[in-house]
């Protein structure tokens, strides 16, 4: 039953599997235009909602595939990694991440793609990330309690939090994503009209 213990796939099994997965990931990111900070940042100026579309389509596609396979008994949910919930550090980290994303124009994954296509701003962003990680190691000690305990609920899924079965949460997530796509497209059209109006003599 899936998933598998790829560490038992010979010496090169685990590396090979992950390089392939990473390859596909990086390839799709670049195809979407996410190797460009201009494309990524446009999300925050409302003219181009691609980040929203790619991200949430990706999430609900994977979610549906995962839970359908779990439901058929082909995929063992208990073996799947569920990120532990740390609300304090997660939310604060998310906000800071969002600011850095806007200022720098990338997130770590997309910056790697940009760097791989020889974009200097991607390279500088990655260097910044490496620096930020280094600084973190030396500055986290006084924040240790906040980091490890604020809103720390361990493994908490949305469906357990709501006290419902997984599909109920999935239906909610899918409906929310569809609503966001509709709203996003409406905003895109509105922004296009605004731009057209401004250009008119």
């Amino acid at each position, binding site marked *: 039953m899936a998933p598998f213990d790829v560490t038992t796939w010979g010496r090169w099994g685990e590396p090979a599997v992950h*390089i392939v997965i990473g390859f596909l990931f990086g390839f799709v990111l670049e195809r979407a235009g996410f190797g460009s900070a201009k494309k990524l940042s446009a999300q*925050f100026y409302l003219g181009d909602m691609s980040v929203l579309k790619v991200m949430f389509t990706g999430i609900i596609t994977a979610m549906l595939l995962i839970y359908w396979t779990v439901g058929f008994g082909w995929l063992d949910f208990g073996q799947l990694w569920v990120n532990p919930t740390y609300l304090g550090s997660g939310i*604060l980290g998310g906000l800071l991440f969002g600011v850095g994303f806007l200022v*720098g*124009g990338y997130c770590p994954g997309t910056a790697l*793609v940009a760097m791989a296509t020889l974009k200097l701003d991607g390279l500088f962003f990655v260097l910044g990330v490496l620096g*930020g990680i280094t600084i973190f190691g030396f500055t986290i000690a006084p924040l240790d309690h906040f980091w490890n305990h604020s809103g720390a609920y361990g493994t908490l899924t949305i469906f357990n939090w709501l006290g419902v079965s*997984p599909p109920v949460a999935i239906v909610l997530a899918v409906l929310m994503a569809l609503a966001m796509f509709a709203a996003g497209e409406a905003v895109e059209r509105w922004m296009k009209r605004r731009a057209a109006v401004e250009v008119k003599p």
Partner: protein
Amino acid sequence: MKQNEERYWNPYLCGVLLGIVLYISFLVTGHGLGASGGLARGVTAAMKVVAPGTVNSTAYFAGLGGGEKTILSHWLVWEILGVMIGGAVSGLLAGRFGLGTHRGPQMSVRFRLVFALLGGLLVGWATQLSRGCTSGQALSGGAILSAGSWAFMFAVFGGGYLVAYPFRKLWR
């Protein structure tokens, strides 16, 4: 700078493809994607070479690679190698490969690079605080329905929109 923007694929299509890749990752390995964790290991490995004492005595780095731990023999490191190769190949095939700097119309290259560095610093710090980035937390944690990951994801959008207007000169 070559950038065939009209050839970007439809975002929904890319989303579906991304979701399939993410699913394959969970199906085969049990975990999702990631990026920042791989870079953190890169930092720790480099530090181990130049200052092993520091790695062993600083809790955060020690946890990643102190003592006898092998640092780079980890799926995140393999994966980000793959990400770079995949990105390069796609860029080559699409005519988007080549030296250049993506920047807003009002930004000089120099300023853009400075802000890229500063943004990266903040993002780098933040990813360690939130235990992941958009790949590991938002996409992967989001797909598996981790509550903390969804909170992180909304916070990212919140943070970005919050400072979009003040920093508009960067991109408009």
